[in-house]
């Protein structure tokens, strides 16, 4: 594997910049696919759900070549097999409880028009997965201590948590909303519509004061938190049906300003994808990616490489259905 990466690096040094996607990203993702069909977080690591979804989301719309199609097929098979009996997906193998990656898994399958029943079971699990702040003891605590809480936010707006029974946070809520917004009506449970409304309200409630999002604490002890690129991107992608809302525009302004100071390839690719989705101009991506790659080879990260591949795909509609119709596997 490492040898393959070195070869890719050598090729890249000689290749014109526009070949980055073809010569670096695609070979990396194909060569880092594990024998079980999935991907690990990094080169050589065991398969888990998130990197597998990231790789599949990028590859499925990257090329129609036989090699890519075969790779995607094997990845989808692994993903389907990893679904837990309750319809959710675990973050890593051995965990018996599903979590935030369920949104990503459903999104990955649904955007390819696959496995309708598996997606439906995943969506049902998501709709039943309420965060911890909705529970009785939380409401009592909130009622008793109310104003003494250090974090001021509207707890009636509930989204999704990273792990079952904990608090709502920006990213898992965004992943779920990104899925729900593209589901056809027949897959949208009545409860999903309510969850969607609450989740969107939660995101707007948690926006940082100058625009943008951090992990989900915009104000602690009266001090405004700083937004971060990743959460801002995911929140904006989740809220893209409201492009003209001032909160969206303010957050896009923040992201545009932050763009030129981004020091990590994953954040850069995601910011690029988000700004393009909203039709905002972006500078060419390749030169900065090249320098990042030569520094650290993206830490051999599968999700990073997948986001970069998606960002460099001129024909892509990232996180949107790429196939019409639904195939049951």
């Amino acid at each position, binding site marked *: 594997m490492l040898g393959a990466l070195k070869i890719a690096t050598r090729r890249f040094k000689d290749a014109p910049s526009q070949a980055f996607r073809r010569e670096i990203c695609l070979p990396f993702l194909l060569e880092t696919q594990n024998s079980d069909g999935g991907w690990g977080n990094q080169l050589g690591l065991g398969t888990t759900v998130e990197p597998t979804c990231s790789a599949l989301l990028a590859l499925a719309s990257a090329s129609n070549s036989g090699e890519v199609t075969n790779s995607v097929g094997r990845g989808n098979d692994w993903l389907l097999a990893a679904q837990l009996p309750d319809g959710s997906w675990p973050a890593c193998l051995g965990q018996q409880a599903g979590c935030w990656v369920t949104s990503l898994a459903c999104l990955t399958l649904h955007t390819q028009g696959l496995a309708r029943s598996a997606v439906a079971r995943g969506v049902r699990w998501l709709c039943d997965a309420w965060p911890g702040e909705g529970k009785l003891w939380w409401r009592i605590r909130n009622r008793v201590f109310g104003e003494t809480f250090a974090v001021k936010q509207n707890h009636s707006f509930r989204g999704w948590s990273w792990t079952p029974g904990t608090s709502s946070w920006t990213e898992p809520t965004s992943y779920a909303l990104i899925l729900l917004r593209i589901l056809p009506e027949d897959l949208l449970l009545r409860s999903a519509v309510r969850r969607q409304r609450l989740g969107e309200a939660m995101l707007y409630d948690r926006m940082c004061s100058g625009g943008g999002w951090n992990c989900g604490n915009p104000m602690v002890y009266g001090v405004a938190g700083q937004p971060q690129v990743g959460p801002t991107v995911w929140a904006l992608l989740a809220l893209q049906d409201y492009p003209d809302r001032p909160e969206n525009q303010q957050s896009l302004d923040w992201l545009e300003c932050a763009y030129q100071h981004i*020091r990590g390839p*994953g954040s850069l690719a995601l910011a690029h994808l988000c700004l393009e989705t909203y039709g905002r101009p972006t500078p060419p991506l390749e030169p900065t990616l090249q320098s990042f790659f030569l520094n650290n080879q993206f830490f051999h990260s599968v999700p990073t490489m997948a986001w970069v591949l998606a960002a460099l795909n001129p024909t892509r509609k990232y996180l949107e259905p790429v196939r019409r119709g639904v195939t049951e596997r």
Partner: protein
Amino acid sequence: MSASANSLLPSFARAPSRVAIQQAASYQADLSAVLFEALREFKLTVQGKVILLKPNFVGLDSDNLAMNTHPAVVGAARESFLRLGARRVIVGEGPALERDSEAIVEAMRLREYIGRLPGTFVDLNVDEVHRVSLKTRASRLKELHLPQAVLQADLVVSMPKLKTHHWAGVTLSLKNMFGIVPGCCYGWPKNILHWAGITQALIDINSTVRPDFVIVDGIVGMEGNGPIQGTPKACGVLVVGDDPVAVDATCVRLMDLVPDRISYLVYAASLLGHLKEEKIQQIGASIDSVRTSFEVIDSFRYLRSPNWRKGWNGNCTDPTTYAPKN
């Protein structure tokens, strides 16, 4: 895994601990020489071993002001352990709030201090994980998935920044170990630990992977609304030792706060090390000579107040519920 398995002892059964306070005026000082001498003082057996340095990299701070363990200290520690004969010294961190670890380490210019990052820096948030039964049951967690890099290290060195913390009071070597819990399993932040109770989760994690050695970056610390939004506070010290509780207690004393009022330190002292001053032998500078008063947010004023009485549950997870209203 590190030698932590043999480290759960009640205080009365534990030999007195030693903590060294080394003075260093700035990050331009010869930190390698300072740390090398300090490590030799503790006669650590590192020959041929794999060492994991666990700094506290919280977020993007391109000026290296006070948020993160300074890369110069990390570089000096790495060099010192290699000089002492370590086979391999890796730097591992799993930031709790920022997913893009590459952006964090690039912003702080870590590469300039430890060389090429792939192979040397491990993002603990996305490393291979293994299920581990926790050695204590202070929280309801019972088990966690922990990163391979931590479990396979022969020696784990916690390298926190000297900081106040708006949920826990202070964040030092024990709190720093929250960073070994992988985000890929538990999210950003690792909210499951807050729901389990910061104090309780902290005891469980440190009982399971007790740091074998501690190097605290107190050259410039952070006071006030730490661990991110506080104010830099120059202290000019590196605090080192092989008892994480004793090192943390010493740091709290030099911050002019009272360690017996930090609930997680009190709990930790029952199994993980010494809290009481008479059980800690100071090496190097004395606490009095370097004591620097750290500001704390209102809800932690009781860490300084001489008349404070401990809260009904001794729990620091939500200090506003029992902090004195004065």
